[in-house]
């Protein structure tokens, strides 16, 4: 009935040593205390930890002391337990293992004591000191990073690249309205993007799109239609080719010239970058003279800047030599700018006027100067005189119509709502104040010839004469009240709107159209087809709205600079309505200034106006103002003019309307 205890311990030189002893006692005290039967040098073991008692019948009693933790065959004991040793018992306490088996002698119990753990935990030098032990390996991180970046920024966008403009986006495209009643310069109608969802290939963008194109930000394929091919003009023109703004068609973009003509002239282009591009571009899938050559996108708010004078002069300085058939004169610089050309009516009769381009002459009134036949008889000098009967008439009627001491330009010429040009002069608004068409006063009711429709006027008059009879029974309106002196009354033949020929209706009718009649004074009358007929024809009057078709001229800018009309237009001395009173490039006689009087190219002297090519011309010359002028150039110009009041750079349509009403109260 003894315990055979075998204790295995590690040798200092390596390996193990087993000590065996026999303890002939019925029970065995196991613990850390030095007086225990089995001493376990383990700090996790209590001083008195376990009591083993040898029981008859090959059984032992395993008793943890003072609730010490003892594990028997893998289960924590919660109290004393009696078990058979035959099958072998495994008891663990702390870092020690006790294996109990039946001893060789009957009734003995063999106890094998082993240490399960090293006394001091083994420490691997590399694990402790090298940072690599605490980090994922650099190689792993490198591969993960590589895979993540390629996956997110290459594969994902690539698989989701492309796409085309949808109908919804086409509708959302900003539309450019040109030449509408409220504005003669194109303005964008803003539209919000309809589809703002993120697309993976947006991560490939090299920068934000310009504001008009921002709605395409998540639709790369709208412009980049083919992989590894630069954006082609077709993509631009798919929107920018509309002759009229409309659904999905946003602007008129006029070709500067055909590509073959551009190529004939362009080798004069300066600059290393252009040469490099010209040399390399075709081999790198970059066609020359494409839209994108000038219009770089993904540059944020920057839009294409106005072309520099050198850019223009590169081709235009010596164009005649490169393109012998061009109708354009060479324009090497502003100082050597060719004479302006105006589109004028050629005077041919017909329902629609015909225009031809003629070179202006600095002296607007010289016999060599071009003439324009609008069909109207109108001497400017007579109407603008400060001392004649017209002036007297203006003074008399001034209270009613707002005239001054004599007629002024603005009494007949009212600016259009944009301020750029003038509205057509109208008989009813501007002429009839003086040139009345009343021919009879019937108790205060004025019978009036209808203007603008000779046949109707004739019919009205014929009916009147049939009913009333021709002779002097008609009381003539008192023309004297308009204040004409008798000599002038005769001269302008205003006394009688209709000269009555008693007893002859046809003669009275014909007199309206004949010299001295109401129509003849202002209009060109033809007919009759045979003597005695009354089939007179009045030639329609066409007023030219715009003369300088290739350049931009804005009256409001010049008005803002306080320039009187007479400084540019020789109207006060013009006796013939056919005089073309358009100022030319240089000054004319009589104090008439031409453009170069104030405008002095891109680098003006003091008191002169900066005017690069782009201030009047745009590369894609459309009907509107060049971008340079739209961008508030007028404000810049005004600042250069000392003493000139600063105009608001872009007066609203309403402001301009107000201005017009103030200048033409006679309306």
């Amino acid at each position, binding site marked *: 009935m003894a315990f055979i205890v075998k204790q295995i311990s590690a040798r200092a030189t390596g390996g193990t040593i087993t000590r065996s002893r026999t303890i002939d006692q019925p029970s065995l005290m196991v613990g850390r205390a030095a007086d225990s039967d089995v001493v376990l040098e383990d700090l996790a073991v209590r*001083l008195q930890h376990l009591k083993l008692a040898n029981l008859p019948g090959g059984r032992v009693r395993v008793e943890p002391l003072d609730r010490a933790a003892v594990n028997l065959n893998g289960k924590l004991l919660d109290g004393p337990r009696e078990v058979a040793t035959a099958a072998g018992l495994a008891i663990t306490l702390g870092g020690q293992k006790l294996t109990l088996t039946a001893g060789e002698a009957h009734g003995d119990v063999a106890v094998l004591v082993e240490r399960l753990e090293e006394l001091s935990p083994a420490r691997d030098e590399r694990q402790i*000191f090298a940072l690599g032990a605490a980090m994922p390996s650099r190689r792993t991180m*490198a591969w993960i990073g590589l895979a993540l970046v390629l996956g997110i920024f290459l594969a994902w966008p690539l698989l989701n690249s492309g796409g085309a403009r949808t109908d919804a986006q086409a509708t959302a495209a900003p539309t450019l309205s040109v030449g509408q009643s409220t504005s003669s310069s194109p303005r964008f109608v803003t539209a919000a993007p309809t589809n703002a969802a993120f697309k993976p290939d947006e991560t490939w963008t090299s920068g934000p799109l310009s504001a008009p194109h921002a709605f395409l930000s998540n639709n790369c394929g709208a412009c980049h239609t083919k992989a590894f091919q630069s954006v082609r003009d077709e993509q631009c023109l798919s929107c920018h080719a509309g002759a009229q703004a409309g659904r999905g068609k946003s602007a008129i973009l006029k070709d500067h010239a055909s590509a073959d003509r551009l190529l004939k002239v362009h080798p004069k282009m300066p600059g290393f970058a252009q040469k490099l591009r010209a040399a390399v571009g075709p081999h790198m899938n970059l066609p020359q003279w494409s839209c994108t050559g000038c219009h770089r996108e993904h540059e944020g708010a920057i839009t294409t800047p106005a072309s520099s004078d050198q850019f223009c002069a590169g081709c235009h300085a010596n164009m005649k030599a490169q393109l012998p058939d061009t109708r354009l004169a060479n324009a090497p610089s502003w100082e050597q700018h060719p004479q302006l050309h105006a589109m004028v009516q050629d005077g041919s009769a017909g329902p629609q006027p015909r225009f031809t381009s003629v070179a202006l002459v600095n002296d607007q009134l010289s016999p060599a100067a071009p003439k324009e036949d609008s069909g109207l008889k109108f001497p400017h000098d007579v109407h603008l005189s400060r001392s004649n009967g017209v002036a007297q008439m203006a003074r008399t009627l001034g209270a009613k119509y707002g005239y001054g001491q004599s007629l002024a330009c603005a009494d007949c010429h009212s600016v259009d709502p944009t301020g750029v040009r003038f509205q057509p002069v109208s008989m009813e608004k501007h002429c009839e104040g003086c040139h009345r068409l009343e021919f009879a006063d019937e108790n205060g009711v004025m019978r009036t010839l209808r203007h603008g429709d000779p046949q109707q006027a004739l019919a009205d008059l014929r009916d009147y004469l049939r009913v009333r009879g021709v002779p002097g029974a008609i009381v003539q309106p008192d023309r004297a009240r308009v204040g004409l002196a008798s000599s002038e009354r005769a001269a302008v033949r205003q006394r009688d709107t209709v000269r009555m020929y008693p007893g002859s209706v046809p003669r009275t009718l014909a007199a309206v159209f004949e010299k001295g009649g109401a129509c003849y004074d202002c209009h060109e009358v033809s007919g009759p087809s045979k003597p005695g007929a009354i089939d007179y024809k009045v030639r329609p009057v066409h007023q030219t709205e715009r003369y300088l078709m290739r350049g931009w001229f804005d009256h409001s800018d010049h008005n803002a600079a306080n320039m009187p009309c007479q400084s540019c237009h020789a109207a006060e001395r013009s006796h013939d309505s056919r005089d073309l009173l358009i100022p030319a490039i240089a000054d004319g006689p009589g104090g008439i200034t031409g453009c170069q009087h104030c405008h002095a190219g891109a680098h003006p002297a003091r008191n002169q106006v900066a005017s690069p090519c782009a201030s009047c011309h745009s590369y894609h010359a459309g009907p509107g103002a060049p971008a340079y002028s739209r961008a508030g150039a007028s404000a810049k110009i005004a600042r250069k003019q000392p003493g000139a009041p600063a105009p608001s750079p872009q007066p609203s349509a309403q402001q301009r309307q107000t201005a017009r009403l103030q200048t033409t109260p006679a309306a």
Partner: protein
Amino acid sequence: MATSYARATEHEGFMRHRGYRWLKLSAILIALCIATYAMADVQPRPNGGTWVGYTLGTIGVLLILWLSLLGVRKRAITPGKWSLKAWTSAHVYLGLSLIVIGTLHTGFQFGWNVHTLAYGLMMLVILSGIYGVIAYDTLPRALSDNRSEMTQRQMLDAIAGLDRQLHEAALPLPAEEAELVEGSIRRTRLGGGLFERLSGRSPRCGNVRALRELGARLDRERGSPRSEMLSRVVALLDRKEQALELARRHIQIRARLEVWLFVHVPATFALIAALGAHIFSVFYYW
């Protein structure tokens, strides 16, 4: 040969290799790039898509690929003109020149896109490299000063020796106190995660707790028969704490010395991937 002997004996770091040859060459490269950028009139504004931009970008990508080959090159140490030292010197100075070349290539246009990602990764690689150069210049001295001739193995052996002594000294202690000492032996924290290494502090270390609690007990029981036994244990714990501090300081300096490579190398690979995506996308959406 006399010259090779002279070079072998006189230490010349990679920073001042051959009288700052690569510093000068990089400075010339930077000056050329800045001058080109400043003088070229590109329309409508400088960016990576102009001829200046493409030129700078090509120089940049070639430099990056060459610089990344240092990892391959350093595994083959050769003397001579293209020694590893020369290569490292060029790596550092040409790498620094990329700050200018890369930034000019962007034309100062940045955004949330793959292009700026590549730029950001490049700057991360360069900045971590700058840190590395500074670390290599300053930290080895600190490392050497700290360990005072001790090897890492010796530090661990000292701790293990103290553990054995502690074990022996604590054998007569009652269970609760023995457990604290056992905690010091079993739950000593050395090393640990990145931040624990960089901070040099391990507040959850079993030794700190044992020292604190047994020290308090010793104060309470001073003069009692147990105090001699306790004070022996506490003195051992204190010595162990000092040994641990030395080792932790060593680990901290080593972590500072090595951490940049864990940014520099993986970021380089991510950068190469981003560069690939950058170049591909530019020409895909030409």
